[in-house]
């Protein structure tokens, strides 16, 4: 059907968000009708490994590469070589430093800032917050930390009771929150970097006082915001479907429709259950049929054209 071959490089495997991203890429490639074949390099590796994948994709002579960068700067050389070889390069989810690459990305700093600011407001501008970060040393984590610190600076009376790294692992996060609850340290709010539903579970199991919780728009957590009694919280969108948007952008460029700027930022939204308006939004967003680790925002208006069935089926062209 289509005429293009698109290469995809991703360096985290087995994580719900990333799996959704890959499925969005496949679904979008299929829905666009312009893609003959996807060539996906999807494994757990580092920047050097991603360079290897990108170069393999160059060897495979793809028309465009959509990449979720392991690191903004670390794959610069590979992207440069791709551009030189006449391949369109689009980075999703995170920016890259290579100037020739196009970027369509979630704004990680803004993601953290938005959630943290809402949380601190809920806490009445004072009190202790349990700060549950992602993986130590990951660049998305340090971007989010910037946003969190920015919000913290705006609320001088809010203190971080404890800072932990969950490694974006459910089990680790749960053990951490349980240990922390056992210390009996009073807290007024919990900010999580997307490992959210196990936290609410832990609060419920331990019959601990419910405090406001900020998480991401993962299906599990959104469901909890709608159903768990006494839970006040907010889900900040971090659509994995950005992958589909990346494919769309790449196709546009291949078709000669270059965007005005190299960088397109998708700004996060915040859905809370403290107000009626927010509740309604959450209700409509909830999707219990999705895996609890999958973000519910499975599409991005203007950028993706596939149906829910298509992304859930997770099939690309030719499959």
């Amino acid at each position, binding site marked *: 059907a289509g005429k293009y071959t698109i290469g995809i490089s991703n360096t985290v495997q087995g994580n719900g968000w990333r799996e959704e991203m890959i499925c969005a890429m496949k679904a979008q490639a299929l829905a666009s009708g312009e893609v003959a074949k996807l060539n996906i390099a999807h494994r757990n590796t580092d920047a050097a490994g991603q360079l290897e994948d990108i170069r*393999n994709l160059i060897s*495979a002579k793809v028309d465009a590469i959509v990449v979720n960068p392991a690191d903004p700067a670390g794959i610069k050389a590979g992207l440069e070589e791709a551009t030189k070889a006449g391949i369109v390069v689009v980075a999703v989810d995170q920016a890259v430093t290579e100037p020739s690459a196009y970027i369509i990305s979630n704004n990680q700093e803004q993601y953290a800032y938005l959630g943290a600011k809402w949380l601190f407001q809920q806490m009445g501008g004072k009190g202790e917050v349990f700060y549950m970060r992602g993986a130590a*040393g990951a660049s998305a984590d340090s971007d989010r930390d910037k946003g969190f610190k920015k919000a913290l600076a705006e609320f001088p009376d809010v203190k971080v009771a404890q800072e932990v790294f969950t490694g974006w692992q459910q089990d680790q996060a749960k053990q951490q929150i349980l240990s922390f609850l056992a210390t009996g340290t009073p807290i007024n709010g919990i900010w999580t970097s997307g490992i959210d539903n196990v936290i609410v579970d832990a609060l419920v199991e331990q019959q601990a006082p419910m405090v406001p919780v900020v998480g991401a728009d993962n299906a599990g957590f959104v469901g909890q915001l709608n159903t768990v009694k006494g839970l006040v919280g907010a889900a900040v969108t971090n659509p994995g479907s950005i992958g589909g948007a990346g494919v769309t952008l790449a196709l546009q460029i291949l078709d000669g429709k270059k965007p005005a700027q190299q960088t397109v930022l998708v700004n996060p939204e915040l859905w809370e259950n403290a107000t009626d308006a927010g509740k309604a939004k959450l209700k409509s967003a909830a999707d219990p049929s999705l895996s609890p680790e999958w973000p519910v925002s499975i599409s991005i208006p203007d950028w993706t054209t596939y149906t829910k069935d298509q992304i859930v089926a997770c099939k690309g062209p030719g499959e």
Partner: protein
Amino acid sequence: MSRFFRNQGWVAGLFALLIFLFVVTKLIQPGYGSGDFGSLARAVLPYAFAVAAQTVVVIAGGIDLSVAAMMALTSVTAASMMNGASEEYALFVVPFVLAMGLVLGALNGILIVVTRVPDIVVTLAMLFVLQGAALLVLGAPGGAAAEWLKASVIGTVPIPGLPDWADAWVPKALVLLVVCLCIIWIPLRRSRLGLSIYAIGSNELAAFRSGVPVARTRIIAYALSGLFAALGGLSLTISTGIGAPIPGPYLLASVAAVVLGGVALGGGKGGLLGPIIAVFVLRLVRTDLTLLAIDPNVTAIIEGAIMVAVVMFGAFITMRSRPAGATP
């Protein structure tokens, strides 16, 4: 002759497999050329050093779980030292980082010797320690690498007397790898120290009774491992231009390649050439999988299956070729 095959048969077989894979690659992608080979060499670089690091200690009868963490620490150290520094400063950074690998590797060895805790536990503990240290050096990926260092793995080496098309098949990264490994390995292999490393891996008690200073030899083996890991860390910084505190997938890959390369995990047997060829094989398999656009979820299955199948095959032929008379 038969002894050559008994000793080197596995390496020769691996090499044949590598050649076969190159042919396959060329069939899949007729345009596969010298530039792509250069990419392969660059991809191999960090793995090869990780594998060299693992090989030394495995031959000495140990195992080093801290290889990848050591690479991360040396990589971030190099990247943060070179960040904003002059090009010449890198001339100091490189030896500094190598010395650091050597010393930390020796520390592994010293801890094993002094605490008498099994090496697998000591290096596991050191994995956490080194990872932690890497995080303290750089909390997030960052830093920089000197331009001349980055250039040292890009392009090819003009060899006088060779035609241009042949030069194109001599990527700098490959030359760098071969030179670094040979400078360290060949003199070692020929020295009494090298024999001692094999000896303690083969039978520690017999080695001790043969007058080998077991503790010192073990420490040196780990120090060398640290040195190779530092080279691996440097090559990470050089190829990416940054340092990342989270270790890459080099630990398990190194163990797998060591075994594929014909080095017995019990120690005392094998050499460096086999594991290095194994690294090329494994990287080339990945290239082929990408070229073939195989479903990424299936690639994990294929990589695992290849690993298991090759090792099973090796076990099978050893079982078959065991001379009839020998008591098993």
